[in-house]
């Protein structure tokens, strides 16, 4: 397929649900709460590590208005993973609906369903619990020490795919890979570096917290409406956890108020389903903001050691990345996140000697999960900071150093095969890469030429410029599958039914554009219905930067099939061969000569006139490649050397996502991800006390940026054409969040000579580093 003029794709169209949402029409789970719904509340463990020695729910059960109390003593004990991943999941089975062992402050003790929230809360207070308090594990470096308390000592804990899993050592996963010989590469280098970095806890903070409701219908099926990114995985895991057949569960995703990965997880659905089954009443459970911080999911904190060797001519001779990832109280997404720390950054620069090792440990802290960037965010911080440090050591401009080493179109990397998602990866050559143009365009926009060494800067306020290069992927090759159904209506409109899950990204719009483009009609003729396990075909869901690339191809394929059916009916009507026809503006027309029929006439004919059939079809797609999007990010910052405060003056993100199907939405993905990344780099931080309790689970003490914090931000979409993607598209959703940590760290260094290796970059850390002459001793943070 070659580049061509698009009519719907790549056009400035309005997102199809934008006005509905701007008008405040009922759209989200909470907007559909039935008046008679019981309200669920959860009693959380006050201890990070403990065993329940006795629990008495009788007083709570007796309270008027209380309909059900669930705890480990009255629910099935079925080990599973909460990770919404394909089956068999690469995450270990280490979680129960309820357990007698508490593994973090906030862990499920018991849940109450009651007529009102007040009654539910009062009932929680009436539950009497006694604990045997155990020593908690609160640091990565403590988790695998000899004699460390064992967090998952239950006999059921197991890995369901053949990967290293040693819960008795608090090890939730391990992966390693070597290409060439790291030590040989280090020995060949003129300069070497060996540094540690630490990526801190962070939360997705969707403005809508997790929310789910369920009821049992007249056929005794459980209908779950939930804010999920993975309706089909949700259905499967709920059925597994309740020990009921999949056919008895229906999962519906309405609009959801942001996800960013945190809703790729079964957090509430098992309990709402069980409560609905037990009470035969509609039940509703919405996390408080504090619960969202503590009990949903977070970014996996990582302790990383980065080694690199290079020659003075700029050749990289060795790269070693050793990650210790904190997966918290359960192992959700632990293995695959750390795999992505390797697979999404190591191919970026050509190097013959690469060693990668990832170790995932349990702690008694909040659980990591999927979070936009998915391991690449962590690795990019270490890797791209190190690239600057190495450039300085060999006396080369960091831009030039990257430009001469980065992967280019036509290249491959042995990392692609060596490292997949919990298993061996898939060989691929890069078929589109405009990173060189991203670097050039971004450098021009930020004014890279005026960048001076930090040693030349004086005065209280010092400005600096830093940059970082990035890559991600587009879907998980040979694993992820998406499917779509398309059918035609009498007026020439179409129903597009997809498992694909729009979590606010605009994928319903993007996929409808692809359908409209292929069919030869307009966007308003596509009626989208997505993410309902009874009504739509399967899709893995919204993760791994997959929807546009993967589900987009499923949609493109089904639209092509339907297009052929339309042409065939048109040929019947016009008494000619389909090959003599084409489609223009929702009409089938003869390529030569007179004669045309409208889509509506075709639909009416096929339904009512002759050889009647439903024009429509279904297509599935798995992908064999995961073409990376690329980006070059640039930050200009100002450091106040008196206070250590840092301010981002300007941020430039130049990204190659292939054809942007919807340019404004693609820009929005970059801008949202970048702002999230800036905020994570500078302010977002989990504070814990020495017993593992989070001290700041609210938006007052966990600072998210607002409009008033917005720096000058420039997004440059550098076009390329990914021939394996739908209309040349690849992904854009995740990559943007990986840039701010390293780009800002590098800019801070360029401003005042301070090198930060632990986020967030608080005034205190910068001030202390300035006092220490540039760097403070490394320590593992939170």
């Amino acid at each position, binding site marked *: 397929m070659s580049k061509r003029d698009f009519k719907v794709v790549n056009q400035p169209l309005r*997102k199809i649900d*934008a006005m509905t949402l701007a008008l405040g029409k009922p759209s989200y789970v909470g907007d559909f709460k039935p008046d008679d719904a019981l309200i669920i509340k959860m009693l959380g463990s006050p201890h990070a590590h403990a065993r329940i020695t006795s629990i008495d729910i009788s007083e709570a059960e007796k309270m008027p208005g209380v309909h059900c109390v669930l705890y480990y003593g009255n629910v099935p004990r079925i080990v599973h993973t909460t990770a919404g991943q394909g089956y068999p999941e690469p995450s270990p089975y280490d979680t129960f609906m309820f357990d007698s062992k508490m593994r973090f402050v906030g862990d499920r003790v018991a849940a109450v369903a009651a007529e009102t929230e007040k009654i539910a809360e009062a009932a929680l207070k009436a539950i009497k619990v006694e604990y045997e308090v155990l020593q908690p594990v609160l640091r990565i470096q403590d988790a695998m020490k000899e004699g460390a308390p064992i967090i998952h000592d239950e006999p059921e804990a197991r890995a369901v795919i053949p990967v290293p899993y040693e819960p008795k050592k608090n090890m939730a996963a391990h992966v390693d890979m070597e290409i060439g010989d790291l030590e040989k590469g280090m020995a060949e280098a003129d300069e070497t570096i060996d540094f540690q970095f630490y990526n801190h806890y962070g939360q*997705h903070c*969707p*403005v809508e917290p997790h929310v789910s409701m369920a009821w049992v219908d007249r056929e005794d099926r459980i209908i779950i409406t939930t804010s999920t990114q993975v309706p089909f995985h949700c259905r499967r895991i709920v059925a597994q956890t309740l020990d009921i057949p999949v056919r008895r569960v229906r999962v519906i995703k309405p609009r959801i108020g942001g996800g960013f990965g945190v809703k790729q997880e079964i957090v509430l659905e098992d309990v709402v389903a069980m409560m609905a089954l037990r009470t035969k009443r509609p039940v509703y459970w919405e996390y408080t903001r504090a619960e969202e911080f503590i009990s949903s999911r977070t970014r996996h904190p990582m302790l990383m050691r980065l080694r690199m060797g290079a020659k003075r001519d700029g050749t990289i001779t060795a790269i070693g990345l050793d990650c210790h990832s904190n997966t918290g109280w359960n192992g959700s997404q632990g293995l695959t996140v750390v795999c992505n720390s390797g697979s999404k950054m190591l191919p970026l620069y050509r190097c013959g000697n690469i060693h990668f090792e990832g170790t995932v440990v349990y702690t008694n802290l909040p659980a990591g999960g999927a979070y936009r960037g998915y391991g690449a965010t962590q690795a990019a911080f270490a890797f791209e900071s190190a690239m600057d440090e190495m450039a300085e050591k060999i006396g080369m401009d960091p831009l030039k150093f990257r430009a001469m080493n980065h992967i280019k179109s036509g290249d491959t990397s042995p990392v692609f095969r060596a490292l997949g998602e919990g298993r061996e990866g898939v060989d691929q050559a890069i078929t589109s890469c405009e990173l060189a143009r991203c670097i050039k365009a971004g450098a021009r926009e930020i004014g890279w030429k005026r960048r001076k060494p930090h040693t030349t800067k004086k005065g209280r306020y010092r400005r600096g410029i830093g940059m970082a290069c990035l890559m991600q992927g587009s879907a998980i090759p040979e694993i992820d599958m998406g499917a779509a159904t398309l059918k035609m209506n009498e007026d020439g409109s179409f129903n597009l039914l997809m498992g694909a899950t729009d979590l606010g990204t605009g994928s319903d719009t993007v996929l409808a554009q692809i359908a409209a483009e292929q069919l030869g009609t307009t966007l308003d003729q596509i009626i989208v219905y997505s993410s309902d396990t009874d009504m739509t075909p399967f899709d893995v869901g919204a993760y791994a930067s997959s929807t546009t690339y993967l589900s987009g191809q499923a949609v493109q394929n089904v639209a092509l099939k339907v297009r052929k059916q339309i042409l065939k009916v048109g040929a019947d009507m016009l008494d000619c061969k389909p090959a003599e026809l084409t489609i223009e503006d929702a009409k089938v027309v003869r390529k030569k000569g007179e004669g045309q029929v409208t889509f509506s006439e075709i639909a009416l004919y096929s339904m009512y006139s002759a050889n009647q059939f439903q024009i429509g079809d279904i297509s599935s797609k798995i992908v064999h490649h995961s073409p990376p999007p690329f980006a070059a990010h640039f930050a200009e910052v100002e450091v106040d050397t008196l206070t250590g405060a840092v301010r981002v003056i300007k941020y430039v993100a130049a990204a190659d996502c292939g054809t942007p199907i919807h340019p404004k939405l693609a*820009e929005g993905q970059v801008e*949202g991800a970048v702002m999230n990344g800036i905020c994570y780099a500078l302010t977002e931080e989990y504070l814990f006390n020495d017993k593992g309790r989070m001290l700041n689970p609210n938006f007052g003490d966990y600072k998210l940026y607002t409009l008033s914090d917005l720096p000058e931000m420039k997004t440059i979409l550098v076009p390329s054409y990914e021939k394996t993607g739908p209309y040349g598209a690849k992904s854009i959703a995740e990559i943007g969040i990986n840039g701010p940590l390293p780009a800002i760290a590098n800019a801070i260094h360029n401003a005042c000579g301070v090198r930060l290796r632990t986020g967030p970059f608080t005034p205190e850390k910068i001030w202390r580093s300035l006092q220490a002459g540039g760097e403070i001793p490394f320590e593992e943070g939170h």
Partner: protein
Amino acid sequence: MNMKTITFTLNRKEQSFDIEPDETLIDLLRRTGHTGTKLGCDTGMCGSCAVIVDGRAINACILFAFQANGRTVETIEGVGDFDSPHPLQTAMADAGAVQCGFCTPGIVMTAKALLDEKPDASEEDFKLHLDGNLCRCTGYVKIKEALLSCSSATGGES
């Protein structure tokens, strides 16, 4: 139950409601079908529940319902509809400022309160007034563009 009756003007219509004394305005609004007002944090820190009370944008999650008694309350449902959207709603939709859309009603209400008072609001005015509205999707770039297009001083029609 210890219900009280309050009366206030909601979206230009005077209405009476039976409320509990400790009920918040957002709970009252949402249980009476005004679900466009969203609950994001329940502590007055995210702005997704912003409504306009006597001309000022206020977080409905930290206002008791009884505090609305005798006052004028405007919610997103009173601002526009498909056939007559408010210019802010059109601007947000057209700018690509609506991603997940959960924060959008709060942003529209907060910005509307400002523009009702000051049609020529400046960029600084928007920054000050919208400082309590969190959006995690857009990075605020397109929101800013939408808001500025609605001010007579920064691009909108006078």
